[in-house]
């Protein structure tokens, strides 16, 4: 249980960081980094997500069980995305017609 409230200062710093990162991701998108553009976009989004989760959602003061639940959710999303993509990405790799 999180009984101690974070300070307004902490929340404000996090908020300003989030705004900054939003600006950053917009600017970075205008620079041609090839395949790396999508990596940067996702990376920044993940950092923003962590800030919201850890500070605004009080995850850093939460129980270990809560953290496991969140981690589990991320892991399961990963399974859905990666294992499904493993089909689409490997199509045509073997010289078998139609596969």
């Amino acid at each position, binding site marked *: 249980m999180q009984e101690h*409230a974070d300070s307004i200062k902490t929340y404000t710093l996090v908020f300003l960081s989030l705004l900054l990162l*939003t600006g950053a*991701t*917009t600017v970075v998108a205008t620079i041609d980094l090839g395949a790396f553009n999508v990596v940067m976009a996702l990376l920044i989004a993940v950092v923003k997500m962590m800030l919201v989760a850890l500070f605004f*959602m009080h995850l850093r003061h939460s129980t270990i069980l809560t953290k496991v639940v969140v981690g589990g959710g991320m892991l*399961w999303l990963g399974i859905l*995305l990666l294992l499904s993509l493993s089909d689409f990405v490997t199509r045509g790799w073997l010289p078998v017609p139609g596969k």
Partner: protein
Amino acid sequence: MDSHTETAELREQFETPGQQKEVSTLGMWIFLVTEVMFFGGLFLAYAIYRREFASAFAVASNTLDVVVGAVNTAVLLCSSFTMVLAVRAAQIGSRKALIWFLILTIVLGGVFLGVKAYEWNLKFEEHHVPGPSFHLEGTGEQGPAQLFFSLYFTMTGLHALHMIVGEGLMLFLLWQAYAGKYTPRYYTPVDIGGLYWHFVDIVWIFLFPLLYLIARHQH
């Protein structure tokens, strides 16, 4: 006997208010995990088709207004800020601050939805809605371009639906806060309402770059 008279703060099935709060919080987090998996299917479809139709998706994405999208993202982040301040107000027992921060959150959420409605309307006018009247300049792959917009409307539409539910939740919390139901000893609904609101914000944190920022360097 172990049973006690039931109050909002201590329901019959719990031993202590602390247990009840922990249980409610855990329950909300698990619900949010189900929401992650729910949106996850859409992100999968997005990943597959963006990979396969990179250029059509880029052309389609570039028709979205980056400035409007970025500002709207800032609006939503602001509403998360006011929301966490609302929770903090409840935690320290500031009823007035709680009420005002909830109102701000609701207003900012409303602004976000209004801007989204404006953007959707633009798409309708520009014939970028998948269907017989669809036409996108700059690409020969009209089919995949429609796929982008199908995903755009489905993903932002589902997100907006969650926002609307969130607005409803916030209005409920506002009503209860006004009636003085929340104290430093019992403010769990505000807390878990906040968790829901932040989650919907996080979904948008991913939607913005994925939908608005594909290959923006080609100008």
